[in-house]
Each structure stands twice: as C-alpha cells, then as structure tokens.
C-alpha cells in the first residue's frame, strides 16, 4: 500500500518514476501541472505553453518563472490554484512524501446517471484529466524535517467536491495521524458536496468529524489550510475545525459561495468580502500566510507541537493511553 512519494518529481529518481508508471500507480506530474492552471491560461493565446495570463491583473507571466514563484503572480501577488501533487511538491521535504491509499477506487453509491451520461463516466474523465482517481490524496511527509500526515484536495477533480471516497480518504488521513501520533496537515479547496452522491456525500461531513473528534481525544494537532476556493461541506466540517486555521491570501472561503449569496440577496458583495483577510478579521482564521512563507510557518508549528510529546503535561498522555490505539511504528520518509 502506498507508493514512494513524489521524490522522482524532484528529479531524484526518474527511473523509479518510470517503474512506478509501468505498474500503473505513478502519474505524470508535469501533465497534471499543465492542466491545473488551464482556467488562468485561457487568455494566454498561442504562447500558452510558455506564457500564463494572470486572471486578476491580466499580466502575462513567463511560465518557468511563474513556477519558480510557486504560481503567485509576480505583479499583483494573486495566488493561482495549485494542483494537488504540486502542492505536495512545494510543501513537503524532497522525497519525503509517502502516499497512502493512492489506488482507492471511486464509488457510485446512488448508481447515478445524469441524462445520457453516467457518473461513472464522469469519474473516469476526471481521473484522466487530473491523473488522480479521486479528489483527495494523502500520505506521510516531512516538512523541514518534522514528520506529519499531509493531505490535499484536488480542486480540479469535479470541483474538489467531497463524495464518499474523498470523505473516506480524509478520514483515513485522520486515522493515520491517530495511529502514528503525527500532526495532521490538510490543504482544502472545494466547491462543496458531490451532487452525484446525494446524501451519502452530505454524510461525509459527519464521517470526517467523527474521526476528528477521536484525533482531538488523542491530543494530536490538526492544521487546516484553506485555499481558493473553499466552500460548503468541506468548510463546514473538518476544514474549519483546525487547531490552527490558515488561509492563503485572497482565497474565497465560506459556507455559501459569493454567487449563491448574490443570487439570494440580490446584492453584489463588497470587495474582499468572504476572502481570507475578511475571515481573519472576523475571527475565523488564525493566519493568512502567503504561499512562499507557508512551508516556514508549517515547519514552525510542527516544531512547537513536536516538543509536546516530550513535555508530559496534563491530559495529553492520559487521553492517548485511554482512547487511541497504540502508536503504529513508522519510519517516515526514511
């Protein structure tokens, strides 16, 4: 179970990558990367391969440089959306990511069809387009040498919506944190629930929170990072209940999206409303962290929390003993 990280993507092990690809479990990260920004690229015209247009300030950006800038516009600091594997690449230490449950197949609990097309077909198309079988991936990782469990929602996979398998994998990420006693870091970006899975999708909110409650009882920290856009059942469940809630600058975060609010209230939202900085000032976020500083911030939090296990204060240990399974022995990224 699990494949050996994204190390090959860092140019360390292209042979391994090829080997994994042959086994059908690897994906071409470059391809994913290219596809992941296509909305921003629409205006880029013929030079689309080398140039990207910023959807906010309309500046044309040179792609290699733009990638170096972690897909943050060099002119206006607009944070472009990032594909899930790229997020792991720019967050985890090189070679440290060990994916888990990479091959968990999608589910179709309602046997849903919409007109002539089945949901199964849509899932297959999304998998082909993103290189991922579902909208969430997770695994063990290190950030500046501190071990953690790291998970990311793939917004490009049916809008990052949470169906049974996204809920299942988020839950398994939490369970991995409980079992290993390693802090959990989740990057969330989602349009909300997966319509095609109906109430099964809705119930993933309760499913993930049931295990998050156990994570709390086990005294394991959870850092939730919300990136643009983050709505609905994801925000209204685990994403908003981090011990530390972080937003990327300018990210739209909330229960209802701006379009829904504008349709209901028939008023335009004022500038900045429902974005990260707005949520920070209204007490919902702990921090708004620009992408280039995210790794440093996460590393600092992990460093502080890592020391807690040696401090032996208060309820932590007692809870751990009474409520969680004995820690699984793992050598992370070793």
């Amino acid at each position, binding site marked *: 179970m699990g494949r050996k990280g994204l190390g090959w993507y860092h140019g360390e092990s292209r042979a391994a990558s090829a080997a994994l690809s042959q086994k059908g479990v690897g994906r071409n990260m470059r391809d994913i990367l290219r596809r992941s920004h296509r909305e921003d690229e629409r205006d880029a015209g013929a030079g689309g391969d080398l140039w990207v247009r910023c959807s906010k300030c309309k500046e044309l950006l040179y792609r290699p440089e733009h990638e170096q800038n972690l897909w943050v516009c060099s002119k206006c600091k607009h944070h472009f959306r990032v594909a899930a594997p790229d997020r792991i690449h720019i967050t985890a230490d090189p070679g440290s990511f060990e994916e888990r449950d990479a091959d968990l197949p999608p589910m179709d609990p309602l046997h849903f069809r919409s007109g002539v097309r089945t949901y199964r077909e849509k899932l297959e198309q999304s998998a082909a387009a993103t290189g991922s079988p579902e909208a969430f991936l997770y695994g063990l990782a290190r950030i500046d040498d501190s071990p953690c469990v790291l998970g990311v929602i793939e917004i490009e996979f049916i809008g990052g919506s949470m169906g049974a398998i996204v809920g299942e994998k988020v839950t398994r990420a939490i369970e991995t944190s409980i079992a290993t006693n390693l802090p959990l870091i989740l990057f969330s970006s989602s349009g909300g629930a997966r319509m095609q899975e109906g109430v099964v999708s809705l119930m993933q909110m*309760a499913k993930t929170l049931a295990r998050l409650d156990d994570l709390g009882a086990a005294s394991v920290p959870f850092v939730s990072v919300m990136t643009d856009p983050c709505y609905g059942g994801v925000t209204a469940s685990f994403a908003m209940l981090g011990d530390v809630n972080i937003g990327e600058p300018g990210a739209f975060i909330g229960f209802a999206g701006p379009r829904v609010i504008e349709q209901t209230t028939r008023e335009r939202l004022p500038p900045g409303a429902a974005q990260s900085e707005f949520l920070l000032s209204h007490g919902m976020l702990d921090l708004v962290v620009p992408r280039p500083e995210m790794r440093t911030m996460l590393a600092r939090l992990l460093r502080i929390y890592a020391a807690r296990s040696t401090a032996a204060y208060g309820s932590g240990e007692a809870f751990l003993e009474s409520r969680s399974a004995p820690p699984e022995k793992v050598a992370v990224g070793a």
Partner: protein
Amino acid sequence: MELEWEGPVRQLDGEIANIRRVNPDDDRIKSLEEDREARLRDLYQELSPWQTVQVARHRDRPYLLDYIKWMFTDFVEVHGDRRFGDDRAILGGPALLDGTPLMVIGHQKGRDTASNLMHNFGMPNPEGYRKAIRLFRHAEKLGLPVLTLVDTPGANPSLPAEERGQAQAIAESIAVMLSLRVPTICVVTGEGGSGGALAIAVADRLAMLQYSILTVASPEAAASILWRDASQAPEAAAVMRITGPELVELGIVDSLIPEPPGGAHRDHAGAARLLREHVLAMLEELRGEDVEDLIRKRHDKYRNIGRP
C-alpha cells in the same frame, strides 16, 4: 396551498360540501367520504419524489412549535447563544415527554409573511447553531436525552452569516453532537436541507417522517449545479434519493415514521401522536446504554457511511 395532483380529492371535497349544504344527513355523504379517503390513501401510497418534496414543504405541515404543543406536558423555550444573538430559525428548550425530561431543538418555519420573516423561512444563522450547541451542552450536563426535529431549506446564505462564521458554526454543531454524552434522536419532519439540516441531525437514531426529504442540496440547486437549469428540479428529485424509503435502503436513515392519511398537514394532532410514539420507542431502545458504547456506536455509524 393546493397541490395540483390532489385534484381528484379536492373534487370529491367539493361534491361532499355541496351535498352537505343541501342536506347534512344525505346518505351519499358517507360513501363519498369513504371514496375520498380511499383516493387520498391511494395517492399518498405512491407519491413521486417530487410530490414528496411538495408535501414536505407544505405550508400547513406541522412545524416544531406545533409538535411541541401536541407532544409535551411541559416545555420552556430558552433563548440565545450567549455570544451574539437569539436566532428564531432554531428554537429549543427542556421539555417533559411522558414524564421523561429531554432537550428538544429544531428548525422553525413561518406560515405567513410576518412569521416567515421572524423565522427567516427556517434558515438559521450562525447564532442558531450556536444556540443549539449551548442546548446540547446543557442537556449533556444534566443528563437529558436530546431530540432534534429537522425542517429547513438550509442554512441562511448571506454575507452577515458568513461574517459570523456559518461554516464554523455548522461544523462545530456536528462535532458537538458526535461527542455528546447523552442519547440523541433526530427526526426529519419536513425539509432536511443540506448542511443546515445536518448540523442538528447527527444522532444515535435518525428517523424520517413518511413524506419528509433529506437532501445534499435542494432539488432546484442540484439541478442548477448538474444541468445549469433549476427548472429540472423534479428530475433531480427523482435521481438523488431524497425520500425516506430510499434513504433507509441506502442505510443512512434508521426508520420511517408514518403520517396520518393524506399527510401530516391534514392532521397535526395525529402526526404528533405518531411522532411521539416513535420517539418514545427510540428513547426506550437507548435507555440504559453505556455512554462510552453510545459514542463509539455513533462514531462507527457515521464512519461507515460510504466506506468502500
């Protein structure tokens, strides 16, 4: 509020009324009434999902305060979230049900413009969920079982609601329900709309009234998202499995509670009596359960929804 497909029944209603006006003792009345009952029963035996949506949203359907009036011998509505305000779309308080004290919490809709404005059409703001959380804690402290009645189009989508953390409030309410150290029962009595419903619906027992619905998004919203056409709501209702029988089949809902013939909106007292019996039976099932077992089972139940 007339349901189009109840036409045959309304026609008989008219006939009976006409005859009665001439002669209240006319022999034909009885057989016509029997005919009417039979037709109503037939109609309601095979409601389509979209018809169920219409009944679930019927303006005459009993709401929280109606059930409270019919079900409890004592009730005190308490107010406020102790942080910001008192939401009128979620109400609750301690109550006595057949001698058993419990905490009842639910959505409240209005029937006319004034009461709909007051209760915001049953769409709670964050204060509503935070009031619910406070009442959950109150119940937990005093060892009272919790009964929630769900009937909402969804949480209020507005900028002020976002400002005060609609998502946070819903998430916290679900989390608190999951860890509550008392037995919890939820009954969907009308519209169980999305996260705004789920926030107070995570319970040891989840039941639905016969003609209620539980949805991930309203059929209109789902049709919008799926086909960019809200008018296809009936089609969305048909494929999304939102009725009680479908959700029992999916293993998400534990049981169905029958409604009086022709739906709860025709007989509030009867609907409340059926609800009351069912709630008492569920309470009896949960009585004496060890708290740790209860929480473990509750966690497992939700853990296993959509498990491959």
